């Protein structure tokens, strides 16, 4: 045994020295093709201004990386091309920049695919080959891209140091599998390919503030999910069960649920009304298996000798697929099929891009729906009692049933000073409850509510505040005309769906 080990060591050393001897040649030869498929992306973005929602912020330029995939398209990060007004792509080693547009974008998984009109851009370029399996821990990978805006391709070697679920900061709310690499990923690297044995296994996408030489990459399963999703010509995003669970490792809980010994599973604590399981699962149900795989007491499932969280099975599915669950319910097992649908949840408060913020101005008061983008502009102001309600609402809207009947939470985000609203600044960041006695369940409700008056006045009431704002209805139309021209505002409102209107 010992001898054999020694022999193996010799072999390993030999292979290493061999590869060392040939390193310049092989690496050059092996990378020519990959280099040809790397692309530098120049973008001019204009982010929305949630404080002044009628206008965008000044244009800003940036750059990122991408790579050519089959079908004459370019893959990059969603965050590279979000809010882009103009995109140009440039092949490695070429001077020519060619305009490109976004074909598909997945903000929840931070992947985008670009298309180029000028087909000659792809001449003599080979699309990358995707790997078929993920590298394992301690495998060496190469990160290609244009960090810190450089014009020449940069190549960084790193080692895979962890593969786990991680927050995708671009959307601020989604978590997917991420591959951590001990190579620095810097701005500009974003969207660049990560190679293992010459094949793309991940996309570089985010680093950690304060951590050195740590980069996060979007691994194959997430890329594959995206590519499969867009096959039908539209990006739908990830389906979600929408279930909060409790482990069933506690013997007292197990006997309370009447779980027979040997049966694992997790107990449903809460079912999200916007998740796929809404109406199909209920609290106290125990999920004992998913797509035929038994779920352990801690929620893990053994898959290909690996332990993964049971939600991984949902993660791998597309919208419109189904998932098969076995439940322990009413002291017996029961099969449930959950159709996975596209999730449309206005109360998840995901960071939004490529969408103009909605607003409405009345009496110089600026109302907008509660959004992650607006909350981000508040910064430390969130540490004030007035804004705390926004923080609470953004996290507990569904759990504490604050969302019931609503389409949006409408908040007072600003005041354009004018004599009509001189004393109205104290209500900033509060949630509008009603106007003239009409409940405000979405932004456009304000317009309807203002069609009548309360004895010649407009009365705005806010959640948890007994102090109403009262404006003189006779003065309001003229005031708004003056305010729009004075502050150079193109329109009194913007609604994303004009069909909100009657």
């Amino acid at each position, binding site marked *: 045994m010992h001898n054999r080990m020694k022999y193996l060591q010799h072999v390993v050393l030999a292979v290493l020295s061999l590869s060392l001897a040939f390193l310049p040649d092989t690496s050059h030869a092996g990378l020519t093709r990959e280099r040809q498929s790397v692309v530098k992306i120049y973008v001019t973005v204009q982010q929305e201004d949630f404080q002044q929602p009628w206008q965008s912020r000044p244009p800003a330029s940036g750059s990122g990386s991408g790579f050519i995939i089959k079908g004459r398209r370019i893959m990059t990060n969603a965050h590279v091309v979000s809010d882009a007004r103009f995109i140009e792509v440039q092949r490695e080693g070429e001077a020519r920049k060619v305009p490109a547009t976004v074909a598909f974008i997945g903000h929840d998984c931070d992947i985008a695919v670009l298309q180029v009109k000028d087909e000659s851009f792809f001449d003599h370029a080979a699309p990358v080959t995707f790997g078929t399996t993920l590298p394992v821990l301690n495998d060496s990978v190469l990160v290609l891209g244009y960090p810190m805006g450089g014009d020449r391709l940069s190549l960084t070697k790193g080692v895979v140091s962890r593969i786990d679920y991680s927050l995708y900061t671009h959307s601020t709310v989604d978590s997917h599998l991420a591959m951590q690499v001990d190579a620095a990923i810097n701005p500009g690297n974003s969207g660049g390919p990560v190679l293992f044995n010459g094949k793309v296994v991940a996309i570089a996408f985010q680093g950690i503030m304060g951590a050195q030489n740590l980069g996060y990459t979007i691994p194959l399963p997430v890329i594959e999910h995206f590519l499969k999703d867009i096959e039908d010509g539209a990006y739908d995003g990830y389906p979600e069960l929408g279930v*909060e669970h*409790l*482990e*069933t*490792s*506690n*013997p*007292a*809980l197990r*006997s*309370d649920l009447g779980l027979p010994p040997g049966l694992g599973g997790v*107990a*449903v*604590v*809460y079912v999200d009304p916007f998740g796929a399981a809404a109406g199909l699962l*209920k*609290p*106290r149900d125990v999920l004992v298996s998913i797509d035929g795989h038994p779920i352990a*007491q801690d929620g893990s499932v053994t898959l290909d000798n690996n332990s993964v969280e049971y939600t991984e099975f949902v993660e791998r599915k597309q919208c419109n697929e189904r998932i098969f669950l076995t439940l322990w319910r009413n002291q017996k097992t029961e099969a449930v099929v959950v159709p996975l649908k596209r999730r449309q949840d206005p109360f998840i408060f995901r960071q939004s891009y490529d969408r103009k913020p909605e607003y409405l101005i009345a009496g110089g008061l600026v109302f907008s729906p509660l959004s992650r983008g607006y909350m981000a502009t508040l910064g430390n102001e*969130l*540490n*004030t*009692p007035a804004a*705390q*309600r926004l*923080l*609470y609402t953004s*996290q*507990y809207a569904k*759990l*504490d049933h604050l969302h019931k009947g609503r389409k949006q939470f409408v908040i007072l985000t600003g005041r354009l000073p004018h004599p*009509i609203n*001189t*004393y*109205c600044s*104290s209500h900033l960041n509060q949630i509008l409850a009603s106007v003239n006695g009409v409940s405000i369940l979405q932004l456009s409700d304000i317009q309807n509510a203002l069609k009548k008056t*309360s*004895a010649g*006045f407009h*009365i705005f009431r806010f959640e*948890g*505040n*007994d*102090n*109403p704002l*009262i*404006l*003189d209805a006779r*003065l309001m139309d003229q005031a708004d005309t003056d305010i729009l021209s004075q502050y150079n505002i193109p329109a009194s409102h913007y609604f994303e769906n004009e069909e909100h209107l009657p």
Partner: protein
Amino acid sequence: MKQALIALFIIVICVAQAPASDTNNPAGCVVEVLVTAQRFDALIPWKKGRPESRAGYAVVIAEGRLITTEDLVRNAVLVEIRRPGGAVKAKASIVVADPRVNAALLSAPTDGLLPVGWSATVKTGAKIQLAQFDESGQQQNGDGRITGIEVATLPSVAQSILTFEVLTDLKLARIGTPAFHDGNLVGLVMQYNEGSQTSQVLPSAILRRFVEAADHPPYRGVAVAGLLWAPLLEPAKRQYYGLPDDDKGVLVLRTIPGSCTSGVLQSGDVILSWDGQSVDSQGYYNDPDFGRLMMVHQISGRRHPGETITVTRWRNQKKEDVQVILDAYDDSRALVPMNVEGKQAEYLVEGGLILRELSADYLLANGAQWIMRGNPRLVNLFLTRAQAPEKPGDRIVILSRVLPHPITAGYQNIRDEVITRVNGKPISTMQDVFAIRDKDGGITRVTTQTASGIDIVLDKASLNESNRQISTLYGITRLEHRNLRTPVGPLISTTPR
């Protein structure tokens, strides 16, 4: 004859104040106060924090009686006084301390010290003297000027109280530093800002009323009206409420249920005058002693709990006088008490679950960013409903944390959850929890607001043994702490006359 009487009266006052009126150096009344304080950990209710030392000043106001600021002696384990620079310390005891006026009356031997008199009313711009002592007991005098008289929030308690802002050339080192005017006490320093050389001084007008109340036990605390109001400046709003076109009146937003103003005032009423003084649209009135002040001073600074005052309200286009008997602030009536004093929280550690009531100090223990860092639901409850229990005495009982142990397997990540039921029975206070535990012989089932359909269940058979193990494992000498409480009854009822 009348004149003679008045003259005699004046002489008597002068004689009475003679010992104190050493105008050259009134600092003969000052002692150093050395405090060892220790408070309960706001997050771990069985644990006491590290003892801390504080030093400040107190002044002698009568034989054996001294006054200082409450925050100096808060959570005191030991209070000692000594003459400046002296070696001999004498133990002092706290007669009454009220965080809501930031004043504490001490009792201690004061032999050889001269009691100080109270300064009469001072005006903005008045020159005053401040006195402090260095390590060796050398007196340092400084001049100061009152630059502002206003109602301001106390340094560490959400209570508005009359405050002098003082600009001084003396670099103040300690709280409780006395300020004098013509040899009499003007107030005690509560806070000092070295950058602006300004300090906030608690005026003798407040201190004197506090001492009077403390000398007539039982001490009932500062008067409150249980009322939320807002300025009424907007012309449109004034028109809407049908108010005359002048500058009077503030809008009543809400009264705290069960308080002295509930039933007398309601949301939408306008207060035109309070306690005989007309109130302007920003809530100011003209104080006979200090000029333009916020009307809250008429409650906290000029009245005691139990006193009856007249309020002129505007309701349905009619002006009407109503009587209000002022309440005393009672923290125990809050849904989420402030617990400024840092009293030990009632708690129960049962099968590794830590059950307790939500209080402000629990949330504030998260530091300066407590609003953002704390559990959003609990912070929201405190910010929006602290003073509004559904019925008197109600509290928010929470599952604060879960101590890891085999009995709590699977539950260990649960924290800061609102508890709605225990052993299947609805609860609203820790008293309810203790009563259920005593009756059922243990708690084996806890229902939380988030997971209303599924309970946290504990194994009854191993509960007692687990409690013993947890007590040893985590060094918890007592697995529960109960307060002796008197049931909360209805407040003094008031009827409009």
